[in-house]
């Protein structure tokens, strides 16, 4: 997925927001790709963790928000414990999700979860989904 970077394409406000919400200095990422090799969700993500960090570094807001990476992350911290730069990648990814959720937009609609699933699911599944994927 090629991205054109110009002075005007760099969304400084977005970079700053992700930095503030995540509390992570993701600009120090050196693009080694360690995070991508260990991510258990990589088969299902449109871009790898490395790439989402790169896109965020360059403030390419529209691409970051349109790919499914942030919604696929399971916050498993496999990448975070291995990042040679000490970046807590799931925190950056959570910040990206929150930019949507804080606009009161849900990724999952609780009322669309079918009754049978609610009956068999552990509470921990629902609580964590609502925490991660609803406003």
């Amino acid at each position: 997925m090629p991205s054109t970077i110009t002075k005007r394409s760099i969304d400084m406000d977005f970079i700053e927001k992700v930095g503030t919400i995540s509390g992570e200095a993701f600009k120090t990422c050196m693009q080694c790709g360690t995070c991508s090799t260990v991510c258990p969700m990589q088969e299902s993500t449109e871009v790898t963790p490395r790439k989402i960090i790169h896109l965020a570094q360059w403030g390419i807001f529209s691409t970051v928000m349109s790919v499914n990476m942030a919604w696929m992350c399971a916050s498993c911290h496999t990448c975070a414990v291995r990042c040679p730069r000490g970046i807590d990648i799931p925190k950056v990814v959570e910040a990206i999700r929150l930019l949507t959720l804080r606009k009161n937009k849900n990724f999952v609609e609780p009322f669309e979860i079918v009754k049978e699933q609610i009956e068999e699911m552990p509470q921990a599944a629902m609580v964590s989904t609502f925490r991660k994927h609803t406003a």
Partner: protein
Amino acid sequence: MKIGYYPGCTLKTKAKNLEISTIEAMKKLDVEMVELDRWNCCGAVYSLADDDLVHLLAPVRDLIRARDAGLTPLMTLCSMCYNTLARANLLMRNDEVKREAINNFMEEEENYQGEVEVVHLLNFLRDSIGWDKVKAAVENPLDGIKLAPYYGCTLTRPLDVSVDHNTYHNVFGDMMKALGGEVVDFQEAETCCGSYQVISNPDAAEKTTVRIIESALKAGADALVLSCPLCDYNLGKKQADLMASREGIQPLPVVYMSQLMALAFGVPAEMAHFELNPPLTREFLEARGLLARV
């Protein structure tokens, strides 16, 4: 000996088998689990946003009540509760600015500084009971059963809350060995089971559960041993769906660590509540004669 105990929501409902089997097994070790009064849900996941303190209130309130009741260490059984409480506790210990903001917000409670020690069943057994004492309590050793301990994510990540600080995690395997079982190491023992993605992105979660199950089977495991109700759902209860939708997947029984401990200690099988496990678990234990022995 008494130990403070934080159950969490799932252990009172879908995962009663994890709770009751632990309580009964601990009695055999002369340990009484004292449940925290008026506990509330910890939130299941730790808030990863730096500017979000409000979601820390739930776990911190639990910790304050535990401190006030003198319940430290506070033990958890569910890996997710362990992680959420342990992380919130560390934040209250180490982050002066956030600690002050949270304490100021909770006007009624006395200030909290992380006085409670949060432990999981695994490190409690290792550090406060000792494997020798566990071994001594075994009446029905899990002889010849190849057990694959599945850590998942939240028992060992992030590193500052890991139940095992060795590079190569062995606390879970050590527990299984103490119970007389044979430990099977497998490559995906710490791979995420997909966690909450089972609701939002079930296909993505399924891909990782398949990898975990196949890896354990390839390593020769007879059963996968768990400590988390969400792992139990993704890797155990959803297995029937996997079999139906994919070809060539072999079944793998899943069982909670505490259920095996209860059986090994001679606790009556009814107290391990296998009716709450997938049917395969019971069939497997029956076939191995583990239910008949007690």
